[in-house]
């Protein structure tokens, strides 16, 4: 960032297309709305959050529908980023050196592609948790449950629904925890957020954090070099 402040021209490397960014922010906004509305029913001390939505009765019907939006949106992200999140050998080296990750000693880390092992962990754990939250959420959603019961011809037992409630709460806690890690990582690693807001990162960011990916992008030859005066 300091480089940009000086108005120096560095590489701009495209990282996310416009549609990927829109897709991400649909998921992000619905996640935050789900978090707020869900927490309002999670613990009495947080019930006041339901006021943001117009009361508990509104939360009761709105939360599941926002969940549907998130599931559809997340499916889009999953399809987009699936291939780049497959595990590879470098991930284990990266994880073994997690100490250097946390102390920002990036020069001790192996060159990584578009995603490092931490990002892949976020991707896969959220994929599993979103699926869990959807399935268990249906159990807590009366009209939704009735729909799926008639669609698949089964009748959920009361103990299954109780378990769904417990698993929904547990999976939500994990999803929120991983979301905190995701948001914190984006803040801590400066220069990351522009990837999702503007669609590009600086070359230095790529060199420092995703060198293998940067090399590939350079080989593709689609990198723009802004004019010296560009203050982005």
């Amino acid at each position, binding site marked *: *960032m*300091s*480089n940009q402040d000086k108005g*120096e021209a*560095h*590489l701009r*490397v495209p990282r996310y297309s416009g549609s990927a960014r829109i897709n991400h922010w649909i998921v992000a906004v619905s996640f935050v709305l789900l978090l707020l509305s869900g927490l309002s*029913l*999670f*613990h*009495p001390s947080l*019930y006041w959050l*339901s006021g943001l939505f117009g009361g*508990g*009765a509104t*939360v*009761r*019907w709105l939360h599941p529908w926002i969940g549907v939006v998130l599931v559809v949106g997340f499916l889009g992200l999953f399809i987009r980023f699936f291939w780049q999140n497959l595990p590879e050998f470098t991930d284990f080296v990266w994880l073994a050196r997690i100490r250097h990750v*946390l*102390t*920002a000693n*990036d020069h001790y880390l192996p060159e990584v592609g578009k995603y490092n092992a931490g990002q892949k962990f976020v991707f896969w754990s959220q994929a599993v948790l979103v699926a869990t939250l959807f399935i268990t959420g249906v159990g*807590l959603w*009366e009209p939704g449950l009735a729909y799926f019961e008639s669609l698949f011809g089964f009748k959920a037992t*009361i*103990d299954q*629904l*109780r*378990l769904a*409630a*417990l698993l929904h*709460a*547990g999976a*939500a*806690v*994990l999803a*929120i*925890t991983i979301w*905190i*890690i995701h948001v*914190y990582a984006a*803040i*801590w*690693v*400066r*220069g990351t957020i522009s990837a999702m807001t503007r669609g590009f990162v*600086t*070359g*230095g*960011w*790529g*060199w*420092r954090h995703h060198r293998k990916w*940067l*090399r590939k992008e*350079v*080989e593709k*030859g689609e*990198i723009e*070099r802004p004019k010296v005066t560009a203050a982005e």
Partner: protein
Amino acid sequence: MFPPIPNPTTQATPAKFGEKDLIRRSASTVVPPAQRQTEVAKLIDVSKCIGCKACQTACLEWNDLREDVGVNVGLYDNPHDLTPNTWTLMRYTEWENPASGNLEWLIRKDGCMHCEDPGCLKACPSPGAIVQYSNGIVDFVKANCIGCGYCVKGCPFNIPRISQVDHKAYKCTLCSDRVAVGQGPACQKACPTQAIVFGTKDEMKKWADGRIQDLKARGFDKAGLYNPPGVSGTHVMYVLHHNDQPHIYAGLPDNPRISPIVEVWKGVSKYAGMAVIGLTAVAGVLHHILQGPNRVSEEDEENADKLAGGKT
């Protein structure tokens, strides 16, 4: 005969209990009143029930409820299950007693048991939607109900029903409005055989004892009082001629208790969950304070420039 409750005066009488007598309030902490009111109870003597459904009718009438016209599938049960409008339901079971070879017609008036340890109330996330008075009555407060159905999951007796009309939960109130002015519940008032009696919980236990002795003298040596300890007792109790096997009475639970899954969901998971989320956030803040931001250096940018310069 149990002495009938006298008719009320025509004068307006102040309610005998109210807000100040709450011992539990859903999703809230209440200061319990210094003095607990005498616990009340309804005693349903299954052995005296003739299955006339006067109680069911009285319930509809007193609470101003209407049930849709149903379909006959060859059972006396009408409607087939509890509904948002049917808060009490006669359940009929034809049971062949293996010991005697007799066919016994078991008729149980189903409805809210008004547990001393109410699972519905403990599961409810909406402050004040379910309350428990110190006299033992567990009541739903419609204005605070959000229709989420958690009470259904909390209940060990499968009692609450969610209305598809106004999306609120409904169940027997033990006629809290009648009890508040010294009357018994409508079902009790209407029962022609005193299969339903109402009074203090102690009176009801004593009355049940006499009934149980009578039943034992008639050969029902397993007769007993259904006041399940798993929910710390109930304020609706049954006299059962086969108290060793409550399940034969249309699936009355043998050992009801709040499901352990619900206990974990509403207990440890809340604190553990809040702790995990809170600690993660704190860890992030601490990491940033101690470590500082992870910035891209000028050298990184130059290296990237060189890399790109070599290619383009």
